[in-house]
C-alpha cells in the first residue's frame, strides 16, 4: 500500500550487478521495489513489508530460495503471495521443485527484461506504466 510506504515488489538477489538491473527495469515500469541480498532478510521483509510480489533468486546466502519459498507458503498471511523465481540454475529438476513448493512463475537467467516485467504484471494484475520496447 502506497500510504504505508510498503513496496510493490520485494527483490531478493545476491549478485550486485543483477540486482541493479532488476531494480532499474522494475522501477522503470512504475513499481516500487525493495531489495535484500540474502534469505534471512527476505523472510523478514516479506512479513514486515507486505509486498505484492516477491522476485526470488534461488542461490542465496544463509537461506536459499526454496527455503524462503517454503516459509512464505507456510505463513497464512503470505500463503497466496505471488512469488516469481529467477534462477541461473536451468535444470528441469529445479523448476519441478519450485512448482511443487508453490512458486507462481519461473524465469531462467539470463532473462529478457520484458519477460520479467510481463511476468510481474501478470502476477500482480497491474500493468506496467511503460512497457519497454523489446
Amino acid at each position, binding site marked *: 500500500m502506497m500510504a504505508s510506504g510498503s513496496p510493490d515488489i520485494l527483490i531478493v538477489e545476491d*549478485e550486485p550487478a*543483477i540486482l541493479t538491473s532488476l531494480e532499474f527495469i522494475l522501477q522503470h515500469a512504475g513499481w516500487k521495489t525493495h531489495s535484500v541480498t540474502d534469505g534471512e532478510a527476505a523472510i523478514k521483509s516479506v512479513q514486515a513489508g507486505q509486498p505484492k510480489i516477491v522476485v526470488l533468486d534461488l542461490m542465496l546466502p544463509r537461506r536459499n530460495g526454496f527455503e524462503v519459498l517454503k516459509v512464505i507458503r507456510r505463513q497464512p498471511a503470505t500463503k497466496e503471495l505471488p512469488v516469481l523465481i529467477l534462477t*541461473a540454475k536451468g535444470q528441469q529438476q529445479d523448476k519441478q521443485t519450485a512448482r511443487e513448493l508453490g512458486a507462481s512463475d519461473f524465469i531462467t537467467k539470463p532473462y529478457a527484461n520484458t519477460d520479467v516485467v510481463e511476468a510481474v504484471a501478470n502476477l500482480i494484475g497491474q500493468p506496467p506504466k511503460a512497457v519497454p520496447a*523489446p
Partner: protein
Amino acid sequence: MISGTLVFGTSIAYVILLFILAYISDKNARLGKGKLLRSPLVFTLALSVYCTSWTFYGAVGSAARNGLEFFAIYLGPTLVFIGWWFGLRKLIRIGHKQRITSIADFVSSRFGKSERLAILITIMAVVGITPYIALQLKAISTSLRVILTDSPNAALPQTGDEVGLAFGVAAAMALFSVMFGTRNINANEQHHGVVAAIAFEAIIKFIALIAVGLFVVFGLGGGFEATYARAEDVGVALDASSNFGPRWITITILSAAAIICLPRQFQITVVENANENHLRTASWAFPLYLFGISIFTMPIAIMGLSLLPAGADPDMFVLTLPLAYDQQALALFAFIGGFSSATSMIIIASIALSIMISNHIVVPLALRSPKLFGLKQGQGMTRLLLTSRRVSISAVLFLGFIYFWLTSGSGALAPIGLISFAGVAQFLPAILAALYWRDATVSGALAGLLVGFIFWAYTSFLPSFGTASPFITDLLLYGPWQMEFLRPQVLFGLENMDPLVHSVFWSLLANSLALIVVSFLTQNNTVGQLQAAQFVDVFKQTENSQYSFTRSSAPLNDLLNMTQRVLGTEHAGRLFATYSNSDRIEQNKDASPHFIANLEKELAGSIGAASAHVLLGQVVSGDTVTLEEVMQMADETQQILEYSQRLEQTATELQSTTRQLQAANNQLRQLDQQKDEFLSQVSHEVRTPMTAIRSFSEILLTNKDLDSQQKQSFINTIHEESMRLTSLLDEILDLNALERGEQLWTNEPIDPNKAIARSIQVCTPITEQHQVEVRLGEHIRHVQVEANFDRICQVFINLISNAAKYNNAAKPFVEITSEITKMSDKPDQLTIRFTDNGPGISSAHSNTIFDKFWRGARNPDTAQSGSGLGLAISREILSQMNGSLELDVPKGGKAGMGACFAVRLPVHM
C-alpha cells in the same frame, strides 16, 4: 610242608577271585564304565604278561647257573619300549585301523591278505609257543610238588606221577583259559575282563617276588652288600668278561624280538590296546616294572646256592628258601605268585593262538565246506568260532603237555623259553618289512618265514628232544645220513658256537636273506600293493582314507546273508542298518564299493583279514581291479581334480574381473555425476555474468534517455561482467588441464620470499580497497623451494585476495609466516601460512572449501567476487609441485578464529 588242602584251596580261591574280577570288569566295560580298565596303568600291567613263571622261578635258576645272563631277558624289552616306542605306536595304529586280530592276521593283512601266510604263521606260532606252554606246566607242577613235599631236591628225575600231575595242571589250565578267554559271545571284541585279571596277576606276582626277595636279602642275607659278598663263594660270576658275550647279545636281541613277536605280547600291545597314547606311560612304566621284578633275582640265587644243600633245584629257590626257613605263609604267597605268572601267560597265549587257529585255519575250511562243520544257512559262525577257539585252547595246552612229556628229561626252565623266543623271532623280519619296506612281497614274506622256521626247527627245536629219542641224538652227533656239515648244532661247519647263538644266527640270516631276495624277484598283486601303502604310510593317512578301489559290486541281499553266516543275524542286521540307514534291504540293490570295503573290515575284525577277503570274494563279482586299472582310476581322478581346479581358477578370475568392472563402472558413474554437477555449476557461473550483461545491454538499447552517468555505470558493469566471464572460462580450462595432469610447467628452485613479495604487491589494489593490512611474520629467510614462480604467485595471490575479500573484522589483517619441517623419508618441507582474522571457516566446510565453485559468504559491501575455482586450482598447482594446500589451525591461535591456509613445498636441497 604245607597241606594239600590249603594249597589247592588257596589256588582255587585265587582263581575264583580272578573270575569275579574279570566278570565285574566285563560288566563295567559293557556299561561303558570302568575308566580304570582303559587306563594306561592297566595296559602297562597287562604288558607284564611277558613275565611268566620263567621270570618268577627260572630267572633265579638262570642266575645261579649263568650269572648275569638272565638280565638280558629284561634288557631287550626295555630297549624296545624306550627306544622304539614309535615303532610300537605304528603297530598299534595299523592294528586299530585294519581291525587286526592277531600277529598272523597282521602279517597276512599286510602281504595281500594272504591265507597261506596266515596259516604258516599260525603253525609257526603254535609250534614255537608249545615249549613255552610246557615251561609253564613244568613250573606249576614242579612248584606244586615242592610245596607239597617240602623237598629241596626237586630237580631229581621225575616219576610218572610228575607227568600225571602235569597233565592235571594242563587240563585245569585248559578249563581255566576256556572259561576266561571264550566267555564273550562276540568273538571279535576286546577281552576287558581278561586284561583286568592279567593286570591283577601282574601286581600279585610282583609283590610275591619282592616279598621273597626282601625276606631273603634282609631276613637271611643281612642286606644287599652282605648278600653280594657271598657271590664268589658260591661260584656266581658277576664280572663283565664272564657274562657279556655273543650269547648275551643274542639273548638281548631275542627278548627284544619277543616283546614284539610273541603272540601274547602282540595280543596285549596291539589287539587289546584301547588307546595308542597308553604307550606313553608304558614306555617308561613297563621298563620300571621289569627292573623291579628283576632286582632280587641275583640275591635269591646267591642265597639259595649259599644256604640250601647242594643239588637243590635253583629254579625253585623262590619257594624252597622260605620253606627251608619255615616261612610257610610266604612260601604259599610265593607259590600263588608263580601260579599267577604261569596262568597269565597260559591264558593270553592260548587265547591269542586260538584266535589264530580258528580265524586262519578253521574258518577258511568252514567257508569251503560248511557242511563238514555243521553250518546251516542263516546261522551265524559265532558258535563255530567259539567252539573252535575252545578246542584250540585245549589243543594248544595238550601240545604243551606232549612237549613236556617228551622232553621231561631236559632240566632247566630258561633254555626252554629261549627256544620259543628263537621261534617267534622268525616273525621279526616280516614285521619290520611290513612296517617299513613297501616293496616287500607276499612271496618274500612266505619264503623268509618258511626258511627261518625250518632253520629254527632244525637247529633249535629238534635238538631239544635230544634226550627223548636216540634218532635225534644220532642226528645231533653225526648229521643226517652221516653228512657232518648238516649237523643241527654245527651247521655248515660253524663250530665252537653256543647252540642258541648258532641257531639264531642261521635262522635269522636265512630268513632275512630269503625275504629280501624273493621280494626283489617277485611283485605284489594289487591288494598287496594297496595294503603295503596302508601299512607303511599309516601315519600319512587321514582318519577315513580307506581305499575302495574295488570296482566290485554285490547285491545287498547276498552280502547280508553272508554276514549273517559269520556274525549272526542280530549283529549283521545292526551292521546293515548302520551302513544303509534303512531297516529294509532291497533284494536286488547293489552295495557300493565303499560299503563292501567297510564290511570287509568289519568281518576282518571277527575272522581275520585273509578269511574276510576270501569270504567276500565268493559273493562280490568283478573281483579286485588290476594295478593298471587302479593307476588309471587314480589318473582319471587326478585329471578331474585338475580340471575342477582350473574351473575354480577361471571362476575366481571371472569374479575378480567382475569386481573390477563393477568398481570401474561405479567410478565412471561417479565421474559422470561429477561431470553433470560440474556442467550445471559452470552453466550457473556463466549465466550469472551473462544475465547482467544481457539485462544492462537491453536497458541501454531501450532507454535512450538515460543520463550519461547512469549510462557509464551500466557500461562499466557490462565490461566487468565480461571480464569476469573471460577469467572464469580461463580458469575452467586451466583447472581442466591441471586435473588432466598436463605438464604445464617445470619445477625449479625458486625463492619463496620473492614470490610472496611479488604476490603482496599484485594484491595491493584489493587489500587497499578492503583496508586489509598484510603482515610478513616470522619466516625463513634463505631458502629455496622446488616450484614454478608464476604459478606459486597465482596460489599466493588467491590466498591473499581471499583473506582480504571475506574479512569483515574491524582491523582486518592477513599474516604470512613460514617454517621448515624435517622429513625423514623425503626432502624437508617449507610450510607457508596465510592467517587472517576474518570470519574463519567452520569445521563443516573445512573439506568442501576446496571443491569447485564453493564460495564463502561474500562481503555484501563489495561487488568483488571470484569464480569459486581459486582454491581448487591452487590445490592442483601445489600437488604438481609435490606440495600441498590445507586448511590449518593458526599457530598459537585456536580453531575457528580466522582462517589459516598452509602451503607446503619441498625445500631444494
